[in-house]
């Protein structure tokens, strides 16, 4: 399973990791819903750290798409709430 941390890169994780990822992600979502900035930062950090440590970095020149895309490590609670709807370079 390929997981992208937005703004950072892609990581290859064993498929068996998906349960743990779901668990860690649920904690992030709960913190967003509770609007608890400190818990949100901590939960997002734990999720991303797990991806980095349990996965291995994918080669830069790989052309494979990701199965999961996670928000960047410096995401603010406000950004998480607004669902990253920015236009970016590629307009919708």
């Amino acid at each position, binding site marked *: 399973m390929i997981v992208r941390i937005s703004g950072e890169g892609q990581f290859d994780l064993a498929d068996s990791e998906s349960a743990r990822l779901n668990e860690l992600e649920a904690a992030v*979502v709960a913190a967003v819903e509770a609007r608890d900035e400190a818990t949100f930062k901590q939960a997002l950090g734990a999720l991303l750290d797990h991806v980095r440590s349990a996965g291995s970095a994918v080669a830069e020149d790989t052309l494979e798409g990701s199965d999961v895309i996670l928000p960047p490590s410096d995401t603010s609670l406000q950004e998480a709430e607004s669902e990253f709807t920015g236009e970016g370079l590629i307009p919708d």
Partner: protein
Amino acid sequence: MAGLAGRMSTVVKAKVSKLLDRAEDPGETLDYSYQKQVEQLQNVKKGIADVVTAKKRLQMQESSLQQSLVKLDTQARQALSQNNEELARAALERKNVAQTELQSLDTQVNELEAQQQKLTDSEKQLRAKIEAFRTKKEVIKAQYSAAEAQVRISEAATGVGEQMADVGLAMQRAVDKTENMRARADAVQELEAAGTFDDITQLGSGEDDIDKQLKQLSSQSAVDDELAKMKGELGGGAAPAAASGEAAQISSGEGAPAGESGQQ
């Protein structure tokens, strides 16, 4: 991954599919896709350069705030030595606002610097993927029938498209950040300019609208502390032992902000 990651994936994938929509004639599409990718890479490079420029502008605002701090400190001392405590307080209130702004600007410039570094790394990944795509398209052209090629192209283009979409999002975040910061810094600078810092002695009672706004923005307890400290320093013999060294510095210098070391 229905929550946050799901939403994030949806946003990125929507952008990727926009990028890939153009596929019709495989042979032509391959070269066209590559050409588009190279063009977009140029946009990314230009975007990073814009972020760097914006960051430099903010750093210039920082140094101008720094100068304001020194000036205001000097003015407060001058006012105090002329026994005009009200004026000294007005100057210190402004100094306090400028100081708070400077600290927040500093934090944000550092964050921007980290984002810029990440953007540069992402751009490097994008370049590697585009280069891989260039090689792959020749292989696809040589080895596959038109129908098969179609499938291979969209597989290969997905990786590039995803990276492109991701860099695009990161860029947008950095741009938003610089714009927010600039708007804030501009607002504070305008407020300061409106208070005619150039000649504080002409401010009168120090109770005009601008002063009222500044008073609300500043931390009164910090202003009280600094005023007391400054009085102690200027009072010479009455000053606490710890401050006497600083007081000596001031009389020899041009009102260097001696009180600042403790504030920053």
